[in-house]
């Protein structure tokens, strides 16, 4: 981090932590609090509920929400609260990997293209233009049509397409960065390109991708649950929010809770991630996200 401004006099660890915390906006605090509760609820699901997410109990089918079953039960008697808790694991894990693997690949490719230019940049940009000419969901569905549905293939499909937005973002940031003095200086000193990229430029261009990744995370959870709703995603009987909404859609009139409550979990998770993204925008001082 040779480009970082001179750091203030070293403070005791607790003081530094307090200083950092004081810079967190209310939306960052609320968002992180919500997100942490959701993650903990997913981790400790077996201790938070006495039921099994997969066990069917036809004697207890279609029970409305009550003290025994907080979110009610579905058409084959599974406890919906239990399944919604276990689904945190499914959706957040898939959401995490489908966001951050493409981010890592996209930022590196885009930054390299913006720094090196030449044929690599030209080819990469044509590939990105082509990928972005398709509606995202359509491209993912077409790839799933080729590979077949399922969790494993969702990963492959999103890994193939998701990096393009990050590559474009990182490339445009790198184009600005590449003409700055510190990059020119590093070039004059004869540092290899990868070193300039990783050690010098990356810390300066990564913020906008981190901020974007929070809304991307929301969109990826919506994508995975949407694909599962269409029957192309996480296969039954694995608990997954979108698939749970689909299971209840034919029972909307007699048992509204089957679809409604798992969907609410998606909304809460999405809002938590959006609040964190909002807070990070302030904290990292990102200049590309407008609205303020």
């Amino acid at each position, binding site marked *: 981090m040779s480009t970082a401004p001179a750091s203030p006099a070293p403070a005791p660890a607790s003081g530094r932590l307090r200083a950092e915390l004081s810079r967190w906006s209310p939306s960052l605090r609320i968002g992180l609090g919500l997100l942490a509760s959701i993650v903990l609820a997913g981790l400790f699901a077996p201790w938070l509920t006495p039921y099994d997410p997969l066990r069917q109990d036809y004697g207890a089918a279609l029970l409305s929400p009550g003290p025994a079953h907080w979110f009610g039960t579905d058409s084959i008697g599974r406890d919906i609260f239990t399944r919604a808790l276990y689904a945190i694991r499914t959706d957040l894990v898939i959401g995490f990997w489908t966001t951050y693997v493409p981010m890592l690949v996209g930022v590196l490719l885009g930054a390299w293209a913006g720094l090196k230019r030449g044929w690599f940049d030209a080819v990469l940009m044509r590939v990105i233009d082509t990928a972005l000419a398709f509606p995202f969901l359509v491209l993912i569905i077409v790839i799933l049509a*080729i590979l077949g549905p399922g969790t494993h293939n969702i990963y492959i499909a999103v890994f193939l397409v998701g990096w393009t937005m990050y590559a474009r973002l990182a490339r445009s940031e790198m184009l600005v960065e590449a003409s700055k003095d510190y990059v020119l200086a590093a070039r004059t000193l004869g540092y290899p390109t990868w070193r300039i990229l990783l050690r010098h430029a990356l810390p300066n261009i990564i913020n906008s991708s981190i901020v974007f990744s929070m809304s991307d995370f929301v969109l990826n959870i919506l994508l995975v649950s949407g694909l599962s*709703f269409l029957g*192309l995603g996480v296969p039954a009987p694995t608990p997954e929010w979108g698939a749970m909404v689909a299971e209840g859609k034919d029972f909307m009139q007699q048992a509204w809770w089957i679809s409604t409550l798992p969907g609410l979990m998606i909304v809460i998770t999405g809002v938590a991630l959006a609040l964190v993204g909002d807070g990070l925008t302030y904290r990292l001082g990102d200049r590309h996200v407008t609205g303020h």
Partner: protein
Amino acid sequence: MWVLRFVLARLLQAVPVLLGVTLVAFLAIHLVPGDPVRIMLQGRASDAAVAEIYGRLGMDQPLLVQYARFVGHAVSGDLGTSIIQRAPVGSIVWERLVPSVFLLVYATVLSVLLAVPLAVWAAARRQRVADHLIRLAGTVSFAMPSFWIGLILILFFGLTLKWFPIAGFGKGFGGHVHHLFLPALTIALFLGPLLVQSLRAAMLEAMTAEHVEVARAKGLSESRILFKYVLRAAAIPVITILAVNIGWLISGSVIVESVFSVAGLGMLLVHAVSTRDYPVIQGLTVVFALLVLGVNLLADLAYALIDKRVRT
């Protein structure tokens, strides 16, 4: 005259992307692991039937020849023949295009009607309670999965209040407007927040522009300024955000069409995937990309109409 030249220039620029798009569509059938024809026929076919389909699809030719034929046919409007429906893909897609485009335009109009007043209100009362509430409502609205809010709208406005039909496309313009209200509203609920956010930013910027300051100094009322100068300046960001998000809009419509059983392109795609009708999937891949590219071209044309400097 400049319009023609402008469109031609943009189309020429789009050639590499169009080649990429057709390549992706072409590969959609060739990358299927195993034998795509046998998978399509789901193991029910005799060897003779398989060989017949290979011949009909031209899949016994070398890959490069097949690709050249695919592009050649696509350019002349021939997108192949559906295996399942035994009809030309072009005419199947054409039939489904009208409900989809109607839904997309309808959703866009609803989003604008919803977003403009909210953005004006938020910008006028920035950093006050109304602004924060609109922002929060937008965040929640954006995080709502469309398949979920669609079902809730069906339950509430369709099944309980019986105000709107819950499925289908309806007959005549009035029927379409009535039938597609809930699907269009579902899409508007995630497109609207994006519009509000960028409109609000554009208006805040316009409010501090010099000519607006002059108008203010001349003693014009705030509401006059808002409608005379600020809203006009916000037109371009609306076009931009709609063009940039046309892909998301179409993605949303694929799911919404399935929820509301609207016989459009999205439902056709989901159906084609579940029946493994690869020629239809290929055709739709091209058509969806053409929709995105076409909307972007229209947006470029709109800029050129508004701002003469763009006409190169």
